[in-house]
C-alpha cells in the first residue's frame, strides 16, 4: 500500500486518532498527517513495528503514549510528554519538545533534535531487552532523568550549549544512566546522582546511537563524535534502603 494522508486541520483529536487507528487496523503502513495543530494523543496505544506516522505541524501532549512499535516523525515542535510510558517504537522530533519527554518510558527511542523542557526522561525504566533511549540534540531543563530506574538519556548540547544548567539532574536515580556532553556543574546534580567521566569503551558503546541520531537529522558528525562526555549514574542502587526502621 502507498501512503495515506489526512488533513488534520480543525479536526478534534478523538476523530483524528480514530482515523489513524482504523488505518493501522486496515493494514496501512505510511500515514501522513498534515496541518496538525495541538491534537493530543497521536499514536496513543497503537501497535505495529512497520507503521510510520508522519506529523506535519505541532502535535499536542502525550504523543505516542503507551505506543508499542510504530515510528512517529514530527516535522515541528511537540508539546509535553511525547513517548509517555511508551513501550516500543521510535519518536523523532524535528524541533523541540515540552516537559516530561519520555516520562516512564520503558522501551524504544525518542529523538529530539533541539531542546526539551523540565523532567525529561523522568521515571524511565528498563527490563530485559527493553531499554528506552532518549537523545536530545540541544539542552534539557531542570529535573532531567529523576527517579530513573533504567534506560539511557543522552543530551548532546550541540553548538556548544550547556546540556543542563539547572538543578535536580538524576534525583533519586537508581538505574540507567544520563550522558551529557563535557560535564555539568556538580551543583546541578540531584540527591543520589553522581557524575563520572566517560571512558573510551563506554563512548564506543553509545557510538551507534549517536550515529543514528546524526543520520536522522543530517547533522555534522564531527563535533558530536569527537566530543567528551560524562555519565550521571546512581550513587546507590537503593537510594531509599537506609531510610526506614521497623516499628
Amino acid at each position, binding site marked *: 500500500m502507498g501512503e495515506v494522508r489526512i488533513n488534520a486541520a480543525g479536526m478534534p*483529536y*478523538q476523530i483524528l*486518532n480514530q482515523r489513524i*487507528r482504523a488505518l493501522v487496523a486496515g493494514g496501512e503502513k505510511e500515514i501522513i498527517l498534515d496541518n496538525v495543530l495541538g491534537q*493530543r*494523543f497521536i499514536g*496513543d*496505544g497503537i*501497535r505495529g513495528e512497520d507503521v510510520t506516522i508522519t506529523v506535519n505541524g505541532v502535535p499536542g*501532549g*502525550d504523543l505516542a*503514549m*503507551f*505506543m*508499542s512499535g510504530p515510528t512517529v516523525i514530527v516535522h515541528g515542535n511537540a508539546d*509535553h*510528554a511525547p513517548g*509517555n*510510558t511508551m*513501550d516500543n517504537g521510535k519518536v523523532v522530533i524535528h524541533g523541540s519538545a515540552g516537559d*516530561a519527554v519520555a*516520562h*516512564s518510558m*520503558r522501551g524504544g527511542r525518542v529523538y529530539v533534535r533541539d531542546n526539551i523542557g523540565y*523532567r525529561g526522561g*523522568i*521515571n524511565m*525504566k*528498563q*527490563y*530485559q531487552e*527493553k531499554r528506552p533511549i532518549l537523545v536530545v540534540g540541544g539542552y534539557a531543563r531542570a529535573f532531567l532523568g*529523576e*527517579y530513573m*530506574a*533504567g534506560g539511557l538519556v543522552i543530551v548532546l548540547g550541540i553548538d556548544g550549549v550547556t546540556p543542563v544548567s539547572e538543578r535536580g539532574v538524576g534525583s*533519586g536515580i*537508581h*538505574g540507567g544512566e544520563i550522558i551529557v556532553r563535557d560535564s555539568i556543574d556538580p551543583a546541578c546534580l540531584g540527591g543520589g546522582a553522581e557524575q563520572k567521566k566517560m571512558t573510551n569503551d563506554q563512548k564506543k558503546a553509545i557510538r551507534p546511537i549517536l550515529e543514528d541520531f546524526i543520520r536522522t537529522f543530517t547533522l555534522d558528525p564531527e563535533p558530536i563524535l569527537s566530543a567528551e562526555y560524562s555519565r550521571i549514574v546512581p550513587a546507590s*542502587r*537503593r*537510594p*531509599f*534502603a*537506609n*531510610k*526506614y*526502621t*521497623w*516499628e
Partner: protein
Amino acid sequence: MSIGSTPMKYRVTIDPARCMKCKRCIENCSYGVFREEGDAIHINSRNCVACHRCLAFCPRDAIEIEEKPGDYRSHPVWTREVREAIFNQAKTGKIVLAGMGNAQPYPIIFDQLVLDACQVTNPSIDPLREPMELRTYIGKKPSSLSLRQLDNGEIQLCTKLTPNLQIETPIMIGHMSYGAISLNAQTALAKAASRAGTFMGTGEGGLHESLYPYQDHMIVQVASGRFGVDINYLERGAAIEIKIGQGAKPGIGGHLPGDKVCADISCTRMIPEGSDAISPAPHHDIYSIEDLKQLVRGLKEATEWKKPVFVKIAAVHNSAAIAAGIARSGADAVVIDGFRGGSGATPRVFRDHVGIPVEAAVASVDAKLRQQGIRNEVSIIASGGIRESADVAKIICLGADAVYIGTSALVAMGCRVCGTCYRGTCAWGIATQKPELVARLDPEVNAVQVENLIHGWTLELAELMGAAGINSIESLRGNRDRLRGYMLDEGLLNVLDVKTVGA
C-alpha cells in the same frame, strides 16, 4: 548510658501440661519464636509479632500469647507507643516503618452512626420473599435521556451511554499489588471476585499472567511508578484506576524493596530482579488537575473509550473540591481512601496522623458533587476501614456507590492484623514472597473464604435494607434519613448531613 532493652511486646508461653511436643509451632512460626533444644521447645518471645499462626495450628491449645506483659509506668500522654518510637528513633535516626491501617485510638464515626428500621407505618421487607436489588453500576450516568419513537412504535434510546462496571453487590476488593501480597493471595481474591460477580484491583504491581483468566473481574491500576503498565495490561483490565493517593500514606510514594523483587514479580512489574521498585510521590506527568484530565483521556484513548477510568485519592482535608475536579476530568469513578486504609508498609507518622476518616470525606464529596450538579458524572467508591456489612450500609447512606475492602478480605484469608507486613515473613502466606510461606496459602480454600465473606455481608446488607423498607440499593444511596448520629458533635453532624438520634 545506653537505652537498654525495652519491655517485650508479647510474652509467649506453652502450657507443659497441654503441649504434646508435636512441634507444629516450630514449623509454623516464620519469625523464629520457637526452637527445639534437646527435648524441650524453647521460646524467644521477643521475636513474636502476635500473628497467631502458632496458636491456630497448636492442636492442644497449649500456647498463650500475652500482649504487653511488662508495664511501663502508665501515663496518658507518654504512652507506651510514643516512648517506644522515641527509643527506636534514638537508636536508628530513621523513619519508623509500620504496617496495616491507622493505629491511633481516634473515635470511629461508623460506630457513632446507627441505622434505621421500619416499625408499623412502613412495613419492612423480607428479602426471602421480595427481590432485593443490590446490583450496582459503577461509572457515569447520563444527566438526561433522549428517546425516540420508531415507526413500529418501539422506543429507541438516543443517548450514548458510557461504559459502566456491573457489580452484583456493592462490595469490591481494593488494590493490593503482587509484591505487597503473594500471588496465591491475589489468586484467591481474583477467584472470589469472579465468583461473587464483583471486581478486584491489581494494585501497582502489574497483572501476573496466571491471573489473565480473571481479567474481566480485575481493575488494573496505573500509579506513579507505572509498573507493569503497557497497552496489553490496559486492554486486559475491565477498568483502569489511576492511583493518586492512598489512605495509609497520603502524599507520599511507595518503595517495594529489591529483596522482594523475585523473578516473577520482576516479570509482572517489568523491572530487573532485585531492583527497588520506587513509586514517586506524585505522578510526574500530573502536576495539576488539567494534567490529571490529560491522563484520564490518554488512558481512554489508548483503550478506545471502552473502559471506565477511576481515580483514587486519599481522603484529605479538601477531598470534596478535589473530587469535583476529578468528576470534571472525564473519570468515571472516584475512589476515596480513608485514613484507616491499610498498607503493607507505610511510615508510622503518615499511617497515624495524615488524612481524614472516609465517612466524613465521602459525605462531603457526595454533597459537593450534588451541589454542583455533577454527582451523575462519577461513582463514589469508599475504602479504608470497612470492617463489616453495617459499615457498607452506612457509607452508602452517606453517598457512596460501592466499597473496596482490603484488610477485611485478608482477614478472611487468615490475616490476624499483626501489622508486620513490611517484614515480608507473613506466616499466613499473604504479605510475603518466600515460596515456602506463600505455599501455605491455598488459593482455592481462601477463595471460598473470601467469597463467603462477601456473600455473608451481601445477605446482611439485604436484611438491613429490608428492615428499613428499602428494596433497592439505589434508594439507600445518599439516604441520610436512614442514619442518625449518636453522640456526634454538631459540626460533624453538619458535615455528614445526618441528624442526631432522637431527632
